[in-house]
């Protein structure tokens, strides 16, 4: 018996949950969002951190919770656990982020501890030594991982002399960090102006903001806000081959130009990206995975940073099919750039783009992360409603036009990390190649 696929019911409407926002006297922007699904609260504090020294910034994020004027590292951790809570900090080239969660009944306490850390972190010398050594160990491990190594090579090739080019400190730089420079960095950069705190949970948004205002009123001072120059335009050139001897796979990494979320091309670009390689049912995945079996998880997507956006492609393929996989990649990019998509391809990508917006705001942690990220770009969650409406209107012609502008293989920066001895000659049949320099500089021995 043949059965037919049931139709979808009418599309569900995207609604933004109840939200309140206030800028506190100290300059901190607070956004509180209600989602009462579980008796928890999620917080995301995002502090501008552009151009902070890499090694110092990374060690700071590892030791921010390692002690305050009144608490040891163990006491900070225990006090958080008492309310079912936890906090962690990390950095990227744009910001320092402190994320956490707790039982909702512990929300005031979670904020008190956050305030204590922000206003009186002491960076005890012993903990700094321990944590910087651990960070050095993690970097040493990362330098053996193809994902990390290929990323280093790609960033260097794409960003050149822009600060985004280098996102991991060297082991020597990390080992040189002392508590004094952490205290200085904290004093210079960890202030409420320009920062945003998002809270999401089983709470009343207005009352939650009052709770935040009370807990964080002692946090003050002012940071100098640093603006990075815009990222350079991607400059195509020879395929970069980064050597990883005896690698059993090659990591293909490509970068293409892209635009930010508010640019008029963005909705069409996102749909073009999906049709190309941005989701499983894309041409690239159906080709190099489901047809040819070259790879497990190819993926493409737009990466936004404050100073600009790029489109990146990533696939790890068996060493022996490196050149054929790259050839298919260029072919699929070329097909996107030179021919309009089929109507059903566009509709499928459109439904995916619109539908997954609903999924992204259906959890406390999803809402918190999204609201915090958008805030850094001056956007609020209602951006989703506008974006969804724009996705609904994109035409085939617009996708074709945008694909020609952003997905053209002629514009791609290409990096291949793999066993150069085994892949070099066959990759060179596709286009000119050149050896990588970024890994050699960083590790002193090209990651061998």
């Amino acid at each position, binding site marked *: 018996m043949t*059965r*037919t*696929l*049931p139709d979808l*019911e009418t*599309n*569900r409407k995207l609604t933004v949950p109840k939200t309140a926002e206030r800028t506190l006297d100290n300059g901190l922007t607070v956004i509180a969002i209600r989602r*009462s699904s*579980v*008796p*928890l609260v999620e917080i995301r504090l995002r502090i501008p951190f552009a151009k902070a020294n890499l090694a110092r910034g990374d060690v700071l994020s590892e030791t921010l*919770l390692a002690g305050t004027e009144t608490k040891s*590292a*163990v*006491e900070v*951790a*225990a006090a*958080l*656990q*008492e309310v*079912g809570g*936890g906090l962690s900090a990390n950095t990227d080239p744009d910001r320092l982020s402190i994320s956490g*969660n*707790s*039982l909702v*009944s*512990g929300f005031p306490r979670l904020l008190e501890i956050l305030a204590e850390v922000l206003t009186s972190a002491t960076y005890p010398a012993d903990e700094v030594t*321990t944590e910087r*050594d*651990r960070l050095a*160990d993690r970097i*040493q*491990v990362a*330098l*053996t*991982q193809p994902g990390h190594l290929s990323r280093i090579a790609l960033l260097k090739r794409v960003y050149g002399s822009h600060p985004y080019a280098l996102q991991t400190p060297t082991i020597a730089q990390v080992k040189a960090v002392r508590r004094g420079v952490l205290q200085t960095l904290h004093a210079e950069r960890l202030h409420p102006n320009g920062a945003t705190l998002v809270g999401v949970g089983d709470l009343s948004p207005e009352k939650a903001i009052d709770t935040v205002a009370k807990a964080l009123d002692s946090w003050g001072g002012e940071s100098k806000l640093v603006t990075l120059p815009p990222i350079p335009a991607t400059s195509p050139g020879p395929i970069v081959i980064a050597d990883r001897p005896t690698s*059993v*796979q090659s990591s293909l990494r490509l970068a293409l130009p892209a635009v930010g979320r508010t640019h008029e091309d963005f909705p069409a670009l996102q749909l073009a990206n999906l049709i190309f390689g941005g989701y499983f*049912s894309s041409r690239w995945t159906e080709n190099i995975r489901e*047809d*040819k*079996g*070259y790879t*497990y998880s190819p993926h493409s997507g737009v990466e936004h940073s404050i100073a600009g956006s790029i489109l990146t492609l990533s696939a*790890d393929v068996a060493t022996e099919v490196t050149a054929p996989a790259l050839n298919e990649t260029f072919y699929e990019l070329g097909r996107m750039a030179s021919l309009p998509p089929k109507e059903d391809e566009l*509709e*499928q990508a459109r*439904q*995916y783009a619109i*539908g*997954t917006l*609903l*999924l992204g*705001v*259906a*959890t*406390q*942690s*999803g809402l918190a992360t999204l609201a915090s990220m958008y805030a850094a770009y001056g956007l609020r969650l209602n951006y989703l409603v506008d974006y969804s409406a724009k996705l609904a209107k994109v035409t085939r012609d617009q996708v074709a036009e945008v694909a020609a502008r952003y997905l053209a293989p002629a514009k791609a920066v290409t990096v291949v990390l793999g066993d150069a001895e085994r892949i070099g000659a066959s990759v060179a049949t596709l286009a000119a190649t050149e050896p990588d320099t970024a890994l050699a500089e960083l590790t002193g021995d090209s990651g*061998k």
Partner: protein
Amino acid sequence: MRIPATKYPIERFTLDNGLRVVLNPDKSAPVIGVAVVYDVGIRSEPEGRTGFAHLFEHLMFQGSENLEKLAHFRHVQGAGGTFNGSTHLDYTDYYETLPSNALERALFLEADRMRGPRLTEENLRNQVDVVKEEIRVNVLNRPYGGFPWLKLPPVMFDTFANAHDGYGSFVDLESATVADAADFFKKYYAAANAVLSVSGDLDVDSARTLIERHFGDVAKRKAPKRPSFQEPDLSAERRESYVDDRAPLPAVASAWRVPDPISDFTGYLPYVVLAEVLTDGDASRLVRRLIQQDRIATSVGGYIGFMGEPFEVRNPTAMLLQTHLPPGGDVDKVLRTIDEECERLANDGLDKGELARTQARMATHILRESDPVLGRALRLAVLEQQRGDASVMNDLPQLIGAVTAEQVLAAAAAIRPDRRASVEVKVGAKK
């Protein structure tokens, strides 16, 4: 701090073909999580066919009775949803998260492959290639690949079911045939061997009607009888090591058998708590001792089950502690120190507030995992399958909260070197 409870409404029923169904209506967002969990996993794959349960999971996405290859992916994503599947020791899951207007479509897709996947030579060979790339990316081309989940079971266990490599050898994967797949489906993928759960924006009555419409005529087949995989506890320490050419730091993982998670849940839960007392955060015992105080480890983790899912595993299983050491670190010293800390805990007891704060944090973790409709649907399905009662879900935070200090100390007393199986990663020549 009082540990809160959830009050998720949970409806359960069974179709005539034996398919068990769990529904959890929740209108807080217009999305649904759909999960189908089959009661077959890595432990059930035949000798000579290591990795077959996982390979078969891939084949369940390659078309089915009314669907061409690629159709499943396109229909889920073309409805605004996401999908995946995963193979575990004791079960295999298939799932989607979708806007709730796609409920009937998701049910249709799952019912269609429950009737039978399209098993062809071409799809099989293609997915063997894909799985080999999956193994290369996750195990062979990186440091610490498969550590410890693939490396420790063969040290701890003696039977093929418990000890073998669940990702599979390339030889076994390449030897797999369409006939093997057809047999595997026939034996293990009966409706009566599965649980369907749907969580999220649904109406119970209409969801039930749709489920009966789409799954009601899936052929009735007998569920296989699940064998016991029991093995005796260790009577003496076991310790092995291997060289990982790409690993820059030494590492060690140890495992100790724990009580049967299903038949002795009360005896098992103290070990779930103990793993967190030892390793959850900067205030935990082993982080303080190994990392902060003695500086002989660079990271430490503790959890239950080789895949780290304490409420989704059956007997036999274990509590695991894994440690990465600084360059040149002394593995013996780390193991000795862990023994010392467990002994100290068993003899001297917990500090004031230590248990309560650990339990509060565990409650947050459990509640947080249940916020996404998919996390809830998966847990409900597995609890229903393994414990015969999905509603245990609502009790988990408080069951953890009810574990007593005496029980944790007794568990710590059982973490002894003579019951331990360990595997050590030795640093190799190339980096």
